[in-house]
């Protein structure tokens, strides 16, 4: 039994039309159908946060969403963050603070923080800690990621004013 549907999904501003198995998860759609392999598959049960993407601006686990559910929705992935091929403020802060070692969790961290810093431009350390609790990192011990988030928040505020 193969149940298929045609879907049209806007990813990083570009619309893709594909026919997919209804059981295909969104993360597999992004990676296998669109070759957008920046979004990583970790635990596949919503614990690790590596597959976090933005759906209509909200962070979600793309391993817990079906590709068919993304039909006619707007998705942003880590590939959509850079501006004209240059790292954006948050990405640059990750590099400056050595916020990654193996890099597996990084795309999920970036997407979570992209939503969070947009909604909370002036966060406390505690708030950053809380939002990052939804993303696991086994290398850094989180401190460099926290510093990057706080630094990025400040730089983004400066860029706004």
């Amino acid at each position, binding site marked *: 039994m193969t149940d298929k549907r045609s879907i049209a999904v806007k990813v990083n501003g570009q619309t893709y039309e594909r026919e997919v198995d*209804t059981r295909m*998860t969104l993360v597999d759609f992004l990676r296998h159908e669109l070759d957008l392999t920046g979004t990583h598959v970790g635990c596949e049960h*919503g614990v690790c946060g590596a597959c976090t993407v933005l759906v209509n601006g909200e*962070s979600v686990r793309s391993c*817990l969403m*079906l590709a068919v*559910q993304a039909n006619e929705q707007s998705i942003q992935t880590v590939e959509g963050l850079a501006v004209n091929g240059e790292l954006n403020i948050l990405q640059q802060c990750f590099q400056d603070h050595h916020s990654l070692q193996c890099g597996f969790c990084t795309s999920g961290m970036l997407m979570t923080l992209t939503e969070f810093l947009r909604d909370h431009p002036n966060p406390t350390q505690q708030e950053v800690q809380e939002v990052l*609790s939804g993303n696991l990192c086994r290398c850094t011990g989180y401190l460099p990621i926290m510093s990057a988030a706080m630094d990025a928040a400040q730089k983004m505020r400066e860029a706004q004013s």
Partner: protein
Amino acid sequence: MKPAAFKYHDPSRLSDVVDLLSTLENTRLLAGGQTLMPMMNFRYLMPDHLIDLNKVSELDFIQIEGGYMNIGAMTRQRTLEFSDEVAEHCPIMLQALHYVGHRQTRNRGTIGGSLCHFDPSAELVNMTALLDGTLQISSKNGSREVSMDEFNQGFLTTQVAEQEILSRVRLTLPHVRDGFGFVEFARRHGDFAIVACSCLMRLDALGQIESIKIAVSGLGAAPVRPSNVEKNLMGQLPSKSALIQAAHDVSQIESVSDAYVTASYRQHLARIMTYRALCQAAKSAQEKSNDR
């Protein structure tokens, strides 16, 4: 792992959902997917038909009606978290919501999904028990209302039969003078709580307890409302000794052991969580009394 193949349905009206439920076999209803999708990814569950509720917009609402708050089963936890109605009329729920999973899961997770999964320590299950929730269950044959006691059929099991759907939750709103407290213990923020306790407390002009509700999660398969403890507190001043005694009484409730947590540890936590929730509630009740 990936989900086994299924036939996907995405109706946009509740009447279509109950029609599908009455004709199809081995179906599952997909709400936010934050529990069902992992279970399907692991192939614990292999439904033949998956009925996606995300287009059924009539199940997504928050409505204040008299002393009640009606919430559609497909209302997302995020919507509740950022709702002005919830913040104004039911601040304890806001406090509880901060413990529900993570921001990324609250963005998708729904109140109906959480209730139907019926995890013993789920915060929204606890809230529904505390706020004397009634649950509207719909099918092709119409709707029925059940209380939380009837809804609870044991560990991860509810009244909702195969051809039915939970459509609405009706919660009794706290009184404006109700102080509130919600605490839980989990190994990490966002993990399932081992024990959680919520409390609403109202004081009369003399500072004595005129109304009290307590709900403790994590002791057994469903949250417990310790009615004898609530009754004993009525008419008392919320003194340290009275609250310690109440917390002690809660820790006497029978509990269950599992591979990770022993019953006696759960009872130990129940005493501490209850005491803290009662203290929070008493403090905020006193502040509200002073405002009068």
